[in-house]
């Protein structure tokens, strides 16, 4: 018998005393070979930082959680994942929670040094060509930089889950 899922409600503004946990931004130890720092800003439709957001990144055995700071900045330390099944380029799953989001958002981060794999990725291939760039991070002197736009001209691609 099929059960209807419990509906979602916003995470609200006041989770910061509850959801963080020690070293939550680091899916791996800092000295792990292949560890990369991912950093970005969560922005609203006016281009303003979202200072009360929460992002989670995961892939395989890795999981990290980062609140945003006053400037909307989040960061993660992860081991860059291997290529996925079905010809998928290395990527992270990212969920976004915030006050004003009645349901969380689900997206993907692809890596800037995987141009060929990204070009062949079947998921990116389903996204309108002019919006694919919102899913691909850029290299910023060794930091993987990736901003998330909730709305607006540069609105990030989100996926129905």
């Amino acid at each position: 018998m099929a059960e209807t899922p419990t509906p979602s409600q916003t995470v609200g503004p006041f989770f910061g005393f509850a959801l963080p946990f020690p070293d939550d931004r680091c899916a791996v130890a800092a000295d792990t070979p292949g560890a990369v720092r991912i950093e970005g800003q969560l922005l609203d439709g006016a281009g303003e930082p979202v200072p009360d957001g929460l992002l989670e990144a995961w892939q395989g055995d890795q999981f990290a959680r980062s609140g945003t700071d006053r400037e909307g900045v989040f960061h993660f330390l992860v081991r860059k994942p291997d290529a996925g099944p079905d010809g998928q380029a290395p990527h992270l799953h990212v969920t976004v929670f915030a006050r004003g989001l009645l349901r969380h958002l689900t997206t993907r981060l692809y890596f800037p040094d995987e141009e060929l794999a990204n070009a062949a990725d079947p998921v990116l291939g389903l996204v309108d060509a002019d919006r694919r760039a919102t899913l691909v991070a850029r290299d910023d002197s060794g930091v993987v930089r990736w901003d998330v736009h909730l709305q607006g001209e540069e609105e990030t691609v989100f996926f129905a889950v």
Partner: protein
Amino acid sequence: MSTNADPVDFDPPYLHPEYRSTVLRAPRRPPVNLPDEWFHHLAGPVFGRVLVGPTDHDLTVQHAGEPIGERMIVTGRVLDSDGRPVPSTLVEIWQANAAGRYVDPGDDHPAPLDPNFTGAGRCLTDAGGRYRFLTVKPGAYPWRNHPNAWRPAHIHFSLFGPELSSRLVTQMYFPGDPLMAHDPILSSIADARGRERLVARFDLDTTEPEWALGYQWDIVLRGSRATPMEA
């Protein structure tokens, strides 16, 4: 046609202007649909790094003294969309204290903080998918969404489940709260049956005599164990 298909979807829309914060934060483009096998049934996050201490389910013993408020047991089952229990999944909760004040430094509601109450808890569901928290009933509190806006008493819940699609953050409300009818966050769920799904049931059998009131609230996550998992 599978009998496992979701019969109804009660999830709120992203844009619900009565809840003002949605206006600049709701994406305006429809989400991109992907074939199931690439996305829907991927194993969800491995949350084992989030440590659950032996007393994390009891929000009344986290300080030297007992918190002020109506002592309350909140318990229920976490189920998949086939109605089967989801065991060993992480449940995180957070809430205001009995006066309607959060510990969060961003909360400037002039109601007293309780030195004996933080308002955060964690537990893992047992083999039968059951969770159980001991806490005090949260108070209602004002917010600035519109003039004379008050949030009904609620407890925030965060759950993982086995898949990417089963991740859920929601809020549990209390039966009979007159503020529910005026709350744009709860009212973002258009269907009354969906709103009812977020209201706990007072249960005399869960109530412990001369100790704590009992509430039951079952949670159904998207997805099911019957669906194939991607390797």
